């Protein structure tokens, strides 16, 4: 079933033979056989780093953190949903659509949403449109630096299937192969209203306790890393950016 969906999605990409570096054959997706992430102590190898740099980076892998049960978790989820802090990292052209949200016309503050300049403090990452390979590296790093629970909102068609850049040599076609995405907002570009709607959708998801992207990422860590490492060739950061 899963496989089928993959095929369906990727059958008509029409990518030229052999060329797409960034959009691999779906059959090889998540194939981590040629990368090694862990050593015997189940610490990260950080093989992209030099010997010296390894001393300076943390080598703990992410782990799945079980949510609380019952009302307490619901309460916390409510708080999380009502206090969405957006990471101020405009990864693509869609970032321009974030700005109107702050204005008096849309005023995202009234929904408890506000921008934050550092990933440490943010809980939601809005991927503003197409993600090139170069940006992808930064996206991964920033996403990993956010503290869970954390949510990702893919903005625009480009994050879904590459959009108008579907056949570009360096644009990622589908975001959720690399980081878990909670909400996609289609459109090129979607208007701020759509964005707001997406955020509202996210709120609902969080309140329902489905916003477990961080745990998913940790769970499928090797799968994601395999995908990321396949496209990011100059991997000079640790395997998990704390």
């Amino acid at each position, binding site marked *: 079933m899963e496989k089928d969906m993959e095929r369906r999605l990727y059958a008509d990409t029409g990518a030229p033979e052999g060329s797409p570096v960034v959009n691999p054959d779906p059959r090889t997706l998540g194939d981590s056989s040629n990368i090694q992430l862990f050593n015997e102590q189940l610490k990260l190898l950080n093989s992209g780093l030099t010997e010296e740099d390894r*001393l300076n980076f*943390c080598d703990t892998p992410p782990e799945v953190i079980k949510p609380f049960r019952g009302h307490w978790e619901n309460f916390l989820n409510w708080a999380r949903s009502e206090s969405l802090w957006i990471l101020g990292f405009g990864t693509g052209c869609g970032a321009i659509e974030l700005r109107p949200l702050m204005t008096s016309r849309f005023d995202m503050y009234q929904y408890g949403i506000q921008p934050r300049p550092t990933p440490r403090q943010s809980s939601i990452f809005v991927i503003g449109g197409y993600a090139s390979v170069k940006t992808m590296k930064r996206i991964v790093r920033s996403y990993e630096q956010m503290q869970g629970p954390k949510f990702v909102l893919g903005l625009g068609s480009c994050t879904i299937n590459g959009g108008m850049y579907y056949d570009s040599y360096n644009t990622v076609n589908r975001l959720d192969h690399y980081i878990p995405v909670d909400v996609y907002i289609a459109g090129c570009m979607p208007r701020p209203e759509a964005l707001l709607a997406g955020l509202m959708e996210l709120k609902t998801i969080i309140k329902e306790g489905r916003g477990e992207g961080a745990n998913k990422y940790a769970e499928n860590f090797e799968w994601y890393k395999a995908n990321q490492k396949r496209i990011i060739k100059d991997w000079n950061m640790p395997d998990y950016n*704390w």
Partner: protein
Amino acid sequence: MVNPVFLIAITLGFAFIFPLFEKINPKLSRLAGILVFLTLVVIPLIWFINISNMDIPYIYSSTVGLPSNLTINLAVSYMEALVLLVVNGVGLFVYLQEAYSKESPWKGKQIILLSIVMLGANGLIITRDIFNIFVFMEISTISLFGLLSCSSDDRVFEGGFKYMLASGLSSVFYLIGIGFFYLVAGTLNLDALPDGINFTGGVLGVLWPLFLLSGVLIELKPAFANGWGMDTYEAADYSLGAIMSGIQATALIIVLTKIIPLIESNIIMPLLLVVGSITFIISHLQALGQSSFKKMLGYSSSAQIGLVLIVLGSGTNILLAIVLLLTHSVAKSGLFYTGKYFNECGSGRDKPLLVVLSSLFVIALLGLPPFPGFGAKWTLLQILGGKSDVFTIFIILLGSLLEGVYLFRWLGLKIKSDRDSGLVVSEVVPDDDAIPGYSSSDTIGVASQTGLAGLGGCIKVHFSSDSFSYHQLFPALMAVIMVVSGVVFNKGVGLTFRFLIPFSGILFFVVLDLFRVPTKFQVFLAIVASIILGFYVYPELNGFNTLFGFIFLFGIGVQFIAFFNRKGYSPGLMALTVGLLVSLISILTSKTNFQLFFSWEMMTLTSYFLVLRGDNAFAGGYRYILFSLASAFFILAGFSMLHGIFIGEYMSLPQNLLPVILIIIGIIIKFAGIGVHIWLPVSYAEAENDVSSIFSTVLSKVGVYMLFLGGLYFSKRVFKGVDTMYLLGWIGVLTSVAGSMMALFQEDIKYTLAYSSMGQVGYMILGFSIMSHLGWISSLYLVTTHMMFIGMLFLSVSGVIYRTGTRLMYQTGGLIKRMPLSFISALFAIIALSGVPPLSGFGAKWLMYSALLEKGWYLQAAMAMFASGVAFLYLFRLIHSIFLGQEKAIYLNVKEAPAPLLIPQYIFMICVMAISMFPNLLIKPLQTVIEPYFASTVRWEGYEVISALGYWNGNAVMYVTMGVFIIPLIWLLIVNRHVYKVKQFNIVYAAERPFKPETTHYAYNFFGHYQKALGFLVEPLISKFWNGTGILVNNLSGGLRRWNSGNPQGYVFQILLYVIFLSFLMGGTN
């Protein structure tokens, strides 16, 4: 009793027979020479003992066996015996040096001439005939010329020719003088002068003294007519310099003392004073610009003669002049020799004996303790002060300071290490490429090596056979004799036996050094010694003294532990440090001004040499000693006007303003008040780390002690309508602002700390100057606690420097992981230092502001608050740059600071914590100390101290703080369930990763914006001012130097002019 004529007969007989003797057996003849010279020493010694024991005023001998008025008489009194003893001692010394010198020993004619020189000097001293003086003068000069001719430098003929012209002229004048004298007096015999004749009436009466004096004075090389002598000094061998200044000049002064009584005192005294003053100042200035060591010493001799002339002219006890003269004689000749060996061996750092000897001789020359010149100068100034002769006091002290300028410069340049550029380098931050390479692994080795060198950069020495020759033993012997005689003399002036005993500790450790006892063992002994010292002096301490005694003993004693970190053998270190401790304690136990000043100078000297041990310490040490000297001289000038009343007895001190002002200025210089602070940072920074720490913790408090000692004596003095204490208060607060501001912009951590000390001492001064109960408590409280927390900070930083090998803060970083214990200590220290509650530093602030506000010094209070804010800034910078932020790759293997450095820190920390918890532990004793002076204005309710304005309960503050700290901490521990410990590069870096700790660590130019805003406040204007002063003095010196053009005719011209100048002084041209 030995007939004085034997001195002459023996010497002359030896000189005459020597050529024959030498032909027979050269070795034996040289031994005989020793015998003869020894006899020359022994005979006066016998006289000296006899005269002082048997109470004979004179030993008298008329030569031909006829009534004394008919012949030439020789006479020896107490004074002559003393002078002979010393002069002949110097002669013996020169003989031993030269007749047995390794390369080209003197023989034949040279030895003959040397003995004739001695003959001349002896004759000059003992003869009582005015023409006979002429003969002996010629004997000594001509034999000197003979000796000159075998100098190694053949320029000596030029100098010698000039000398001959000059001395020929002076003997011509002297002869003319004799002629006139004979015309007037009808006799040449000084003991057979007819009574009742006015020798100085009429034209003739003016002429004979004019020419006689011209003859003698010109031979004495007075300023503006001494170029010929100086040229000779430059070219002549060291030995001849020693002879000229050590033997001849001394003898000639004795001649002068014989002539002076003949002349009416209202003519001669002012003349000598003027001539002496001019010579003293001008010659020192001229010496200052010399690059030739010998010439410098030559000018110095001339200046010293000027000093003796001043003493003679001021009509004080002639014995003082003699003591000064003899000290000079021995010290100068000793210095000529040690200087010779020193100059021959390049950097003298690895020649401990020479270092010690040169230092001792320089100190003796300057009239510093423990040498006789010190007591003599002191007595002299006391007498002058009693006469309110401010001008002479000023001249004497100014000249002495100028002398210090060049002598200490020479000494410092000789002792400095080869790496030392001699400049104040660390005020400039090196270029970035000086940062150790990022990934080169061998820099670790380099770093640790330099670290070792930084701390262990002591005078690395050993008595290897090639650097040591037994010739140096003779100067050593001389130095020992001088020290002994100095102690004896100074004891005579006013030191007690009990007072002197602790100083023997220095000797003890010197002896240990001689036996190469390892430093660690010495440190152990030093700790024991300080405990013994504590018991020894405890009965004598009371009031402030107890408190400061505790600070000094405890502070230094605890920091002795840090010395255990020294590796190997550091000669002199413990002797000096113990010396410093003893001096400090003696300052406390002093019962008279003399004892106080003696200890003060000993403190200055020991600390100066401690500074000099640093690797780059030349400039620092130089500034340190100059300003310390200036400070000491101001205090000395002040003391001289107190009529001998101990400054501690403020009730009975004289009420005039001048001494107060002088002493306060001295103290201001000593605590590095704003404007005169430039010595402090560089000297504290460039001393070795553990030594700097002692300086900053303990030594910086001594100025404060001095203030408290004078105490109320300083208060309520009005200077131009303003209370002096008000001015002092402003100086204190400005010092603290300036110190803090300058500490803010330093990259070099030791400079930061040094400026910090300066600023903190400013607070103490401010507290003192408030002159109220609370003000004094605050000052003393700060004195005590500052000692502890600056000690923690300095030692913690020492550990860092020791491990990393760098003093530049931005080069380190992230060391909290490697050196957590040091970090904790530094953290507590900066909390306390910046006055943040709940630690004891806040107590100081609270007391200070309460006192200031109570007094009504509102603006000062605001300034003090500003300064404390700035202090907070640099302290944060310090701890951040070193311990926090990014760790450098080369310091990954750095270990925690060694235990000897940590232990004292934690001892201090325990004290700080105790005082913080229970402020009454400290404040209540302080109250009892201050009670005799001021009625208490604070009261206690349990742990709460209540002043007129506010209240503070240190105990409660501590508990509340602990409460508000621990509860959130527990909360955080509960809430934080999954905390991942990450590494230094795991930071948000704009979605990138950092690559180099060096570029990620924000530490360089940390307060750049502050500099932009207020940098104009720390423009080095004051440094510029002092540099300018230095340049001015140098230029002045250069200009004055040019007066001595080197042209023989010019010199003759000068001499003739000088005679005319003298004639004007005598009013004789009418």
